[in-house]
């Protein structure tokens, strides 16, 4: 064993000693999950790849701005700008800086979107799915047609099809870009030893140039808003609207967010999605068809099950889920103080 290897073992042993107390926590999370949501290996792999890709792109963009626009001539930054090989991920991953609730929630939603897109592609061809939006291009309302064109263009700019886990900085929610940009710029400053001020400026420029209106999600939400404001011909359906627009339209109909709708599809039996459909007064046939399109094929929604759901109760539940997160969390904590509270 040479000296380098010995040093490596020493470094890893020291690092492990610092984290030893967390091993039981990690194992406990696996043994005793707090929800019934299952995360398959594909989702974990997708989420991990996606996070790495996002960090890479942000890092490369910061280096581009620093070296090209601000004239920083540092070898490491120039190399990242040129080759795009991430340096900061290895530093950030174990630090816990990427383990923030908003980032993890976003990763989960993206991973679940990929799952849904894959399921959808088993039932409809990629070509048909991509052509769903073209039907709005001839819409009588020019605002709708224009928004549909905007969404088509935004989707086409994304590498690969929507939901395939493709990474585009333009599609990242501003809050997520903000949450990742600063740790990345700090990591770059540490790794390169270059002045932090310049990298901060580069990060600020990256934030300022980000245009949320160009993202696929916002384009879909705007189209959904215009469609729902006008005379819509029918309820949304994933195979008629495509996944992104379907989610946006359903979310708008129910006063929920697109992320909530995607999250509901990951839950056992998609129970909350069924409640949402019932609250929005979808017919049995529509609900069953949507369920089949989004389900992995293991479950069924019977007409009797759906038909027996009390719509008033469903509306009340959805209205509670539409409340601000802070209110829902507080309500949940307070409810624990009262025995016999059976609210869900």
């Amino acid at each position, binding site marked *: 064993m040479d000296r380098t290897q010995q040093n490596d073992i020493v470094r890893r042993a020291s690092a492990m000693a610092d984290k030893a107390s967390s091993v039981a926590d990690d194992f406990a999370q696996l043994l005793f999950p707090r929800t019934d949501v299952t995360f398959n290996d594909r989702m974990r792999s997708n989420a991990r790849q996606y996070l790495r890709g996002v960090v890479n792109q942000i890092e490369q963009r910061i280096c581009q701005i620093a070296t090209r626009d601000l004239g920083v001539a540092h070898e490491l930054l120039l190399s990242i700008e040129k080759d795009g090989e991430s340096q900061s991920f290895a530093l950030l991953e174990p630090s816990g800086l990427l383990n923030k609730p908003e980032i993890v929630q976003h990763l989960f939603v993206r991973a679940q979107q990929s799952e849904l897109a894959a399921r959808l592609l088993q039932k409809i061809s990629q070509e048909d799915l991509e052509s769903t939006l073209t039907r709005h291009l001839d819409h009588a309302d020019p605002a709708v047609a224009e928004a549909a064109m905007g969404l088509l263009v935004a989707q086409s700019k994304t590498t690969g099809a929507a939901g395939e886990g493709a990474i585009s900085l333009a599609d990242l929610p501003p809050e997520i870009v903000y949450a990742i940009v600063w740790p990345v710029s700090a990591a770059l400053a540490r790794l390169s030893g270059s002045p932090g001020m310049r990298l901060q400026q580069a990060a600020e420029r990256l934030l300022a140039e*980000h245009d949320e209106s160009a993202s696929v999600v916002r384009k879909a939400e705007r189209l959904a*808003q215009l469609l729902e404001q006008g005379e819509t011909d029918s309820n949304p359906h994933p195979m008629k609207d495509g996944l992104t627009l379907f989610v946006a339209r359903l979310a708008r109909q129910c006063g929920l967010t697109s992320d909530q709708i995607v999250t509901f599809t990951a839950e056992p039996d998609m129970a909350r999605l069924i409640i949402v459909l019932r609250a929005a007064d979808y017919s049995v046939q529509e609900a069953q068809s949507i369920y089949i399109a989004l389900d992995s094929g293991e479950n069924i929604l019977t007409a009797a099950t759906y038909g027996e759901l009390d719509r008033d109760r469903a509306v009340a539940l959805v209205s509670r889920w539409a409340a601000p997160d802070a209110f829902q969390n507080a309500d949940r904590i307070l409810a624990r103080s009262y025995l016999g509270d059976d609210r869900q």
Partner: protein
Amino acid sequence: MTTARKLAEPVRGEVDSDGLLLSADPLLMRLHLRCGGTEGRPLAVPELAALCRLSRRLGMNLSRPVQASDDDCRIEMWVETRLSVPDRDQPLSLSIIDWKEYSHDDSDMPDPARDRDFDRLEGRGTIRTDAALRIIAQQMPGKPARNVEVIGQSLLDIYDVIPPSAHTRLLEAVAERQPIRNQRMREKIGAQQLFVMQGHPLIDKTGLFAGYRFTAAQDDPEAGVDRTMTGEKLISDSLFGLQLGPALRQPLGKIIANAETISSKLEGPLRGDYASYAKDIASAGRHLLDLVNDLSDLEAIERPDFTVAGDDIDLIDLAHRAAGLLAVKAADHQIRLELPDQQRKLPARGEFRRSLQILVNLIGNAIRYSPDGSVIRLSVSGDQDFAGISVSDQGAGIAKEDQERIFEKFERLGRSGDGGSGLGLFISRRLARAMGGSLTVESAADQGSTFTLSLPARETP
């Protein structure tokens, strides 16, 4: 009432780093002021102000839906924020690219004009009173449209309450703002006609009791439940419309009214499926009532002494009224009704109620037999002698050999289960002819159908 969302130019505004609204286009300034803001003070539209704060905190340009509300309406917007680079202390620019207003009054408020048209179609009269039961407006069957003599008088000075009820019981119901059902009342003067009244309390925008709206149906004292009590023969040969019809309408009306009350949960909460059953009962009741009405009409038009009134009518106005009555049914099937310009006039002569009945029948048929999402077009034509209105649909059309058969009694062309009785077109054509006009059809298989009602033209004064 809603405003269009398409803005010729975005609505713009500027907000400084302290949240003060520095400048705003008139639409945004109006909203800011209505939300309690003043010029040069912090932006007072909560969700918009929050978006500006978030945009500044992140140092990023955002693009999001925003909702706002003032005393008059709810507004849905799509807003984009733009920060100036590199000086973040410069004002943030707001650009509102979509703006749609929904009046608070839009929400399922009943349309009195539409209600009146329904009443006239059914041959019912209406009386509107104030909180002290003084008559504000009255339109009774067979009476002049503007009967000014009764306006301002107490309802109880014009009508006698017929036992078993009494003035005191009626007044108790009024005092408690309760609906008044099946109250028989007789005119004190004139023809002393007998009416059955249904009264609905009216609540104004501030939540205060504002009076009653009564609907009044003519009552035949010789017909009805009382006669069954005496064991007298109810049906005298063919007098369906005069005897059996009214006797059936009254209980059917009660069934429908009660089922609708249950389904709309006016009397309290109810399980969803039970409300749905009640809706089915109301729907079946309405179908049965339609059938009774058709049979009554059939009996009426076949009587030798059947006559129609020669009112001065405007076919374009009638088309809009008929379309208004069926707007909900059309919307249920995503069908668009394309109507002639309401500013135009097409004067004709014919009985108002019967002409409306024909148009409702034609548009109702078009909705029933058209594919969902299609268009039904009403167009007008006319010459010196006749004024015509056509209802064109995009349905399956009618084969040439069937085009005369559909005007025959009980002819359904083999269809069933769609709520029709097979009498509508027969009655409509007979009514059109009784008014000196005609009802014709042009159609071909898979080409849709066009029904044209022609009535004698009337010169405008």
